[in-house]
């Protein structure tokens, strides 16, 4: 017969301070666990969501980022005339050629940041369905006007609607703000590519992005373009291209998070062991009574184990709740693949919360097992005789 759960709950509430301290300790470990997952996840999903699986990006062979890529004008023109490209309603190919430069600007707090300044065409927005203007209007081609991403506007100085920003020795009016739904584009500044080229003294584009008419046509397009000796380019799925940029840093963040939490969990398990040993020690008489009443050793072991897991899960719950305010907070880091600033949001997902709770429960089970076994092995007479 099992010992009623109420027994464990009463025990936990009888030693409130001890229960709260241990639960909080374990809760903080879950908190760090979820915190680092949310950090890595937010960074990765910002870059992953930047690319679309139906788009392909063409960059120079050997380059790992747009910044180090070169696509000549004639090469861009011949890429955009390929038959596998989807058509816009007016019959023109859904493809764009873009110029990407890094410009050193000041953040609102005065520290420097490398901001991606992208020269775009009329098709650029059509190719990224996630992007839409939230304030003002689009820039007019040929004029010294730019639009800025929402996160760039929030973090970079002089990026409000109507402000003027100095780039390449000229003053540019900010005429619009666009929302790219947390993707890398949100940290960028966009203007007219044909105007940018002479102003930034760049005779070539950095990339060509295009929409495929059929996803299955990617292979054929890639084969033809990569075999063309005149251009020396590589063709990638846009989503894979951006995901690859996040791989190293996200893996590092996850690795650091895992290392920290695993080592820290060991410390918390030691704490739980202490608490449960003390609980078993101070309840020797009770254990003797339970045994005398006819409860089996198995049910005593189970009961103490349940108590420990309950305690830890309570902590896990606390830790999970404490991570909720972190969700959505914007932070930024340098995207090491492109040396540019990328802002992203912490992303706490239900599955992270669940893993945090499971993690806590496992800590409780590990920390509770040996003390529970000790409790179950008591001999009735000795246990009752003890103080």
């Amino acid at each position: 017969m099992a010992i009623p759960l109420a027994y464990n709950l009463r025990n936990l509430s009888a030693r409130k301070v001890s229960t709260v301290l241990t639960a909080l300790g374990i809760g903080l470990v879950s908190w760090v666990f979820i915190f680092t997952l949310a950090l890595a996840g937010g960074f990765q999903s910002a870059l992953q969501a930047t690319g679309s699986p139906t788009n392909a990006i063409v960059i120079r062979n050997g380059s790992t980022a747009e910044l180090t890529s070169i696509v000549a004008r004639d090469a861009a023109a011949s890429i955009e005339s390929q038959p596998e490209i989807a058509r816009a309603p007016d019959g023109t190919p859904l493809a764009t050629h873009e110029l990407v430069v890094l410009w050193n600007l000041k953040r609102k707090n005065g520290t420097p940041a490398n901001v991606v300044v992208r020269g775009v065409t009329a098709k650029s927005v059509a190719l990224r369905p996630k992007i839409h203007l939230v304030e003002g209007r689009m820039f007019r081609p040929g004029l010294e006007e730019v639009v800025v991403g929402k996160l760039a506007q929030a973090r970079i100085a002089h990026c409000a609607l109507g402000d003027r920003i100095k780039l390449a020795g000229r003053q540019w009016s900010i005429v619009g703000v666009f929302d790219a739904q947390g993707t890398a584009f949100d940290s960028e500044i966009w203007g007219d590519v044909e105007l940018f080229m002479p102003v930034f003294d760049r005779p070539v584009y950095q990339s060509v992005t295009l929409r495929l008419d059929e996803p299955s046509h990617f292979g054929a397009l890639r084969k033809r373009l990569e075999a063309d000796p005149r251009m020396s380019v590589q063709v990638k799925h846009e989503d894979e291209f951006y995901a690859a940029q996040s791989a190293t840093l996200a893996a590092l963040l996850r690795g650091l998070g895992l290392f920290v939490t695993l080592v820290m969990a060991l410390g918390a398990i030691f704490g739980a062991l202490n608490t449960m040993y003390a609980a078993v020690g101070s309840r020797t008489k009770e254990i003797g009574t339970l045994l005398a009443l006819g409860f089996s050793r198995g049910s005593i072991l189970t009961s103490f184990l349940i108590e420990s897991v309950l305690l830890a899960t309570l902590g896990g719950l606390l830790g999970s709740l404490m991570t909720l305010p972190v969700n959505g907070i914007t932070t930024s880091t340098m995207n090491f693949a492109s040396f540019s600033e990328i802002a992203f949001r912490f992303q706490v997902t239900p599955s992270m919360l669940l893993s945090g709770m499971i993690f806590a429960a496992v800590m409780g089970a590990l920390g509770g097992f040996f003390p529970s076994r000790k409790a179950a092995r008591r001999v009735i007479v000795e246990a009752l005789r003890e103080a």
Partner: protein
Amino acid sequence: MKYLRLIVANLLRSKRRTFLTVFSIAIALFLFCTLRTVITSFEASLRASKATRLVVRHAASLVFPLPLAYRERLAQVPGVTGISYGNWFGGYYQDPKNQFAQFAMDVPTLLDLFPEVVLPTAQAEAFRSERTACIIGGALARKYGWKLGDQVPIIGTIFPGEWRFVVRGIYTGQTKDVDENTLFFHWDYLNESLPEGRRNFVGIYWLRIASPDLAASVSGRVDAIFENSPQPTKTETEKAFQAGFISMIGNVQLLLTIIGSAIVFAIMLVTINTMMMAARERTREIAVLKTLGFSDGLILRLVGGEALFLSLLGGALGCGLAALVFRESDFTAGGFFPNFRVLPETVLLGLLLAAIMGFLSGVAPAVQAARLEIASALRKVA
């Protein structure tokens, strides 16, 4: 202190508890030192930078190069006593994951301007006289097992293709803060291999100035010369340049500090709990000590001293372990932290933290023990 034996005897009574507590504190401090070292490693480049060196780059960003022709004009600026230049190569070895810095440098001036790069004279001579030669840092050589005379293939991302360099020197850093994970090769070799239109461009100029006091005036003068040219410059001290780079990494320091504080706080809660339980179990014993004439103050110091002793022991173990593990391991986390080394300041900070932890976790049980009333304590337990 003659009561030290009493404290030790108390700790030894429940060996398991003492062991578990000391180790959980050691783990907390180990993690603290590790995270703190991540931050100080980012800043190693600051400590290695020289106050008499200025960095000149394109005002917009490092992506834009400067003409080689600037060299003559820079050398003529009063106060400049030496000049070197180079380009960030941005390549990788075999796989993009194998990241480390490669610079194409003007070899005749490299060792003159960077005295912290220490190279045996014979190796320096061999490096100078061979166009495709390179030198690599000691840590890099150990990581990939490269030896003198080896051919190192590097795939360029900015300068496409596979580049082969012959290792003619393995440098060591003059101080421990000097990055030993860099490959330097001939700027001339890079320049001659480029197509006509891309030749004679320089990413960064380094200027040596006669005294640190000249930094502001020389920087201002250099930037004024090129202000209205198509390639304006930004000149700053090496330290300011590195600091700008670090600040671009963003909030990493804040995030790590948050995580580190959470760890220390969590373990502190657990330790407080342990101390309180230990004191509670000894209620009768403390009452007996008081009956024997131990004053309240002494009891306070005994119980508090026990907590402090445990924490400091754990702290010494944790910080010591961190210092040992990272000292000889050449750990770089995939090239992100070229100089991962626990600083003495970090160890001291860790020990201080352990002491604070011990004090805080000892206060509550110590005060409780000191206030204990003999009669009621003895009655309760019996």
